Structures are given as C-alpha cells and as structure tokens.
C-alpha cells in the first residue's frame, strides 16, 4: 500500500518535471508583492524579462503575506519542486542554502561585478559558502523618523540631533495637543523602533556587538539598560490606543496630522506617496536622532533555487535583470527603499531617497551598515523573535524594569540560540 503510494508520488513528480522540461522560457516566481505599488514595481521586472523572451509565472500563494508564502515554499522545496526564484528574507536564504537546495550564480555575479557593487553587509545573506545564492532587490533602512511638516511648523520644532532633543520635541507636540509619537503596538514595530534606540544610545560599536554579535556582556550592560529606559521614555508619548495597531495606520496618523512623528522603516514613505505627499513640503525624513552616519538595514532578496539545467538560463536572466541598474532604480523609486548596489544613479529618487542612497554608501564604506535585529537581519529568526518578545513585554508592562528586561533578554536569546 505504502509502496504503491510512493511509486505513484514518484511518477507524479516525474510527470511534473517532464512538464517543466518544455517550459525553459519561463520564470517561476514565488513572492508576496501583490498590492498596489509593489505589484506595479515588480511589473517593471516582468517587462524587462518579456523583452528577452522569458514569460513570467507567479507561483500562487493562498492568503497573501510573507508567512503564507514561506509555508508554501517549504512545502514546494520538501516535494522537490523548486520555483526559479522566491522572495526571501535574511536568514531564510542561509537556511535553505545550508539545506543544499539553492543554485549557484557565481559566474553571473562575476560577469556583472556584484562583488564590488553590492554592499558587503548584504553579501552575508546573498553569498553562502563562497557561492552567490540570491539576488538582493533593495535595501530598506529602519532608523528613520517620519514627521508631519505642518505639525512640526505649528509647534516650531527643528530637526532633533540627539535623543534628548527628540524627547524635548515630543514634549512640544504634547503641549500643543497632538499625539507626539505614532506607534503600532505590535511586537515587530516596537522592536524595530528599539533597534534605533539601541544604536542611538550605545553608538555603532555597541549596536554591532549587542545586536549582531549577540555578545552577552553587551546585552546585559548598563548601556542596554539605558536603552530600555530610553524606550520607556518614548513609549510615554504614544496615545493610549496604540496596542495592536497596524504600522500603516500609525503612518496615516502622521499623514493626517493627528500625530507628529513615526519611527519606522522607509517603506512608510510609500504610504506618504500614496497620499500624494512630497518630502520637504508635506513631510520630513530625518535619521533617528543620534544615528546619523549609520544605517540599520533589511533587504528583500530573490533566492535562486537549484533548478534543472534547462531552466538555468531563465534564472540567470532573472538575476541579471534584478540587479540591473535600470530595474534597481525604477523599482526602488516606487518601493521607497534604495538600490541594493551602490553604483546606481540617484537622479530619479526624491529627497529622502537621495539621502538614503548617500547614507548607504557612506555606511558601507565606513563599516556602519548593520543588520536590523527586529527585521531578522541581526540573528536567526528564533533569536530575533525572542528579542521581539522581550521588547514587546517591556513596552506592554509584563516586564516592569530595565533591569528585569536585560536579564530576560539574555535568558531569551540564550534559550533561542
């Protein structure tokens, strides 16, 4: 019975494979960029590939979101039915590479000069064991403030340069009767903000040690305690109704002028654009006070799977098109992020995008480009989620003091390693 079932499955799979053999001119892509701007941005890539004669086929994912896509990918890979490429985040790429299912794009990378143009910090996730396994699509950075300019003018605020400036600015907003800080009380948003707080409180060296190297002494240091205290200071400025709010609703509060500022990654810019707001006149983008010169990043990647030989040409075409300067510029202008290679001209980008590109270049050269722990670029998912748990429990009061918070943080990270 079981043997028959296995033979049946094997037959079905081989049929599936032989069906694929005819489809060499096709790119099968698993992704969750299905909404408005993102879908439009991806369309550029589809057209680029169509020009070279490659058809685009979305791998359907029920339910949207990244989680559902990752579950679908796991099932496909377990069944030996690899897509040409899949949208992937951080350590997921390395997990799959360690499982030996990723392709090898080193030749293409050499030809296209990715080694030089893609920031070294990103290559940690796109290169495994000396082989290129993924093509980075963009670089997002999370240490940004998004400020409503009308409210800023009303309260007479100026760009905060230090954490204390920032607190003073929030006080001004509070006195003027607007919600000072728009925050969505979901664990990833709280932790994303805390990434910036740690960098601001401890500086680049400390951030790297604590949040990327997970050095235990740094994690339980007084600087970390102070970071938690600073987080508590910021949380005092949110509205009472913040818990569970989605990030885009928090952005909407800033857009409408109900709130002064949001600390969020640059994907928030997409919301401002969708509301027809322009940087400089309607909204302001500053680096989180005390973090200028450093960039905390996360990045979307297209992981390239070890497909049969007859599908490799399509894969190479996809990877080349993904990292082409024209696509990098066109896509990231729409997405709000900055190109994943540092040699793309910034002519088409708005003021915030131009600053983002310059900052990325500077951080890459100065060695201050760090992975965001909250976004899963500082440590594997188990650790990153344990970190989010602790930050969120601190924000919502299950963990009461910063002393307790660092103890819990060390314990949770140790547990998850």
């Amino acid at each position, binding site marked *: 019975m079981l043997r028959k079932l296995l033979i049946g499955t094997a037959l079905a799979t081989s049929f599936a494979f032989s069906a694929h053999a005819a489809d060499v001119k096709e790119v099968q892509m698993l992704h969750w960029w299905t909404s408005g701007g993102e879908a439009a941005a991806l369309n550029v890539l589809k057209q680029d590939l169509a020009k070279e004669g490659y058809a685009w086929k979305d791998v359907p994912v029920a339910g949207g979101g990244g989680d559902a896509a*990752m579950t679908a990918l796991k099932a496909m890979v377990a069944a030996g039915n690899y897509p040409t490429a899949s949208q992937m985040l951080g350590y997921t790429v390395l997990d799959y590479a360690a*499982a030996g299912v990723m392709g090898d794009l080193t030749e293409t990378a050499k030809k296209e000069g990715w080694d030089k143009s893609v920031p070294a910090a990103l290559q940690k996730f796109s290169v495994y064991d000396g082989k290129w396994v993924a093509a980075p699509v963009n670089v997002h950075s999370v240490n940004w403030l998004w400020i409503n300019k009308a409210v800023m003018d009303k309260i007479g605020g100026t760009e905060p340069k230090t954490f204390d400036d920032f607190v003073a600015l929030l006080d001004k907003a509070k006195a003027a009767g607007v919600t000072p800080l728009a925050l969505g009380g979901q664990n990833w948003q709280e932790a994303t903000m805390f990434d910036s707080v740690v960098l601001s409180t401890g500086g680049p060296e400390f951030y790297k040690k604590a949040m990327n190297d997970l050095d235990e002494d740094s994690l339980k240091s007084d600087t970390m305690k102070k970071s938690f205290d600073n987080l508590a200071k910021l949380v005092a400025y949110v509205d009472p109704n913040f818990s569970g709010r989605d990030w885009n609703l928090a952005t909407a509060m800033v857009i409408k002028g109900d709130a002064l500022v949001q600390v969020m990654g640059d994907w928030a810019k997409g919301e401002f654009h969708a509301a027809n707001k322009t940087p400089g006149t309607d909204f302001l983008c500053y680096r989180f006070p005390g973090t200028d010169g450093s960039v905390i990043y996360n990045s979307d990647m297209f992981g390239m799977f070890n497909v049969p030989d007859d599908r490799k040409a399509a894969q190479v075409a996809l990877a080349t098109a993904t990292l082409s300067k024209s696509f990098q510029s066109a896509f990231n202008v729409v997405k709000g992020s900055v190109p994943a290679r540092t040699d793309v001209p910034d002519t088409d980008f708005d003021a915030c995008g131009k600053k983002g590109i310059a900052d990325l270049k500077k951080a890459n050269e100065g060695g201050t480009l760090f992975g965001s722990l909250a976004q899963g670029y500082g440590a594997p998912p188990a650790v990153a989620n344990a970190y989010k748990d602790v930050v969120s429990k601190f*924000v919502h*009061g299950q963990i009461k003091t910063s002393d307790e918070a660092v103890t819990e943080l060390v314990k949770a990270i140790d547990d998850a390693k």
Partner: protein
Amino acid sequence: MSTVAETQIKLTPEHDARPGASVRSRLQDLLPKIVLAPSFAATIIFVYGFILWTIYLSFTNSKTFPSYAITGGRAYQRLWRWTFESDPPSSWYTSITNMGIFGFLYIAICLALGLFLAILLDQKIRGEGVLRPIYLYPMALSFIVTGVAWKWFLDPGLGLEQTLHQWGWTSFHFDWIKNKDFVIYTVVIAGVWQASGFVMAMFLAGLRGIDGEIMKAAQIDGASTFQLYRRIVIPLLRPVFLSAFIVLAHLAIKSYDLVVALTSGGPGGSAWLPSNFMYEFTFKRNEMAVGSASAVIMLMTITAIIVPYLYSELREKSR
C-alpha cells in the same frame, strides 16, 4: 442431530456449485470495505501517521526543516521550564493559562446562555421562527469574520467606546482589547457571541424532545416552574449537555484564528493560546522541535479530557 449435520453437508457443496453467486456475495461483503478504504487510509496517514510523525519530531533537534536524528527531550525540558515562568510570563505560560481561562469561560457561558435562550424560546412565543435564526446565524460566520468585526467593535478608538463618547457618555471606558490582563476575555466575548446560538439550537431540539406528559404530571403534582426545570428538564437534557460540551471543547482548542483576527496576539503576546504558540514556533521561529512538543502536549491534554468521557459513554452502553 444427524439431520442438522446432513443439512450442513448438503449446503456446502450447493454453495460451491454456484461460483457466480459466491463472487458476487463476496463482492457485496467487500463493497463497504472497498468504499471506505480510501478515507480510512487517508485518516491513517494524515491523522494518525502525522501524530506519530509529530511525536517523533518533538524528540529531534529540528529547526527550519525536519531533522531525523533523535537528540532527546530538550524541547520538553524547555516547555516544562517555561510552564513555571510566571513573572515575567513566558509565552508558553501565557498560552496555557489563557487556554484554561478561555476554555472554562467559553464552554460554561455558552452552555448557560444557550440553555437560557432555549428555555425562553421554548415558551411557545410568537415569532420564534424569526428569533431562532437571528441567534443561530453567527455560527455561519468564520472565526476570522467574527474576529475582525469584534476587533473594530471593541477598539476604543473606533467602536463602542468612541460611539458612546460621541453620544455624550464621556466617562465610559472599555479598553479590554488593549489591556494585557483583560484581552483574553474579549476573545471569550467574541467566541461566546458566535457559538451560543448554536448551543441554543441544540438545547431547543432537546427541549422539544421531552415528553409533554411528564411536564404535565409534574405540574399536577404541584412543581413550580423552577423546580420543573431544575429537577426534570435539565436532568433529561444530559445527553445534549454532553454533545454541546464536546462541540465547544474542540472549538475552544482550535480557536487559533479567532485570536489572530481579533487581537493579532494581544499586547506583548498576552492573548496567545497553545495553538498560536505552536504555529509561531514551528513556522515563524524555525523551532520545529519545540512546536512539535507543544502540539504533543496539546494532544495529551485533549486526550486526558476525551478519554474519560468516551470511557464512561462506552461503559454505559455495554451495561
């Protein structure tokens, strides 16, 4: 005696002499088995096979992908340690205490409310045909729809509180859904709203099945309405209680989607149920071994409740 033996001897060759009939009758015997075989096989593999698979995985060191080398009970040790970490509460501690609170209140309130509504509807009132579906329809909604609707309704900035403030009752305060200590009770509210109508329908069917003569006899004997229900009706409804309990218990255990839609996990993960814990660890945190171990513990908990019930039911039947 000899005649019996003779007929038996006679019968056998006759039976063999008609091979066509024998094949057909054998086929007829087999037919139910053949029809059931696919679903039986599917159940064996996809339910019991995967239960064993999960138990196996819980003793490995599986992370993102299953790994097959048994490495011992570290996953269980971690869960056991987390069981007693109440300050600050570990995610597992939160999940299991929430399961206790939610399971108990959800089942108890649904049963009480369902019985109460059924008794009211059973008073031969006018318009029962309209009222019954009104209570019953929430059951037709998925947990996701219920969750989202109640999320908006309970949100202090959007729903009930905001509306009452606009109407002038500005001191009204109801922010349970934003409060880490009370968020699990909002899950109870939404769950009860959805299921109590269904329980009511079950009780109503039970009430309609009670012989009117018994009621009349009790009334003639001078029983008050309260005594009538307390001493006669409710004891007669015992089988309905049991069915309703089983339906509600399994709804309670699988209400993962309600928590996600209503609270997206609650402030600091304070609304998690064990099912949320299991999904989160297996698929988001790539700790498949811990996820599997928590699933096994859930299974054992359910078994501890269901097996005594089945045992008592079966014993009663065999008596």
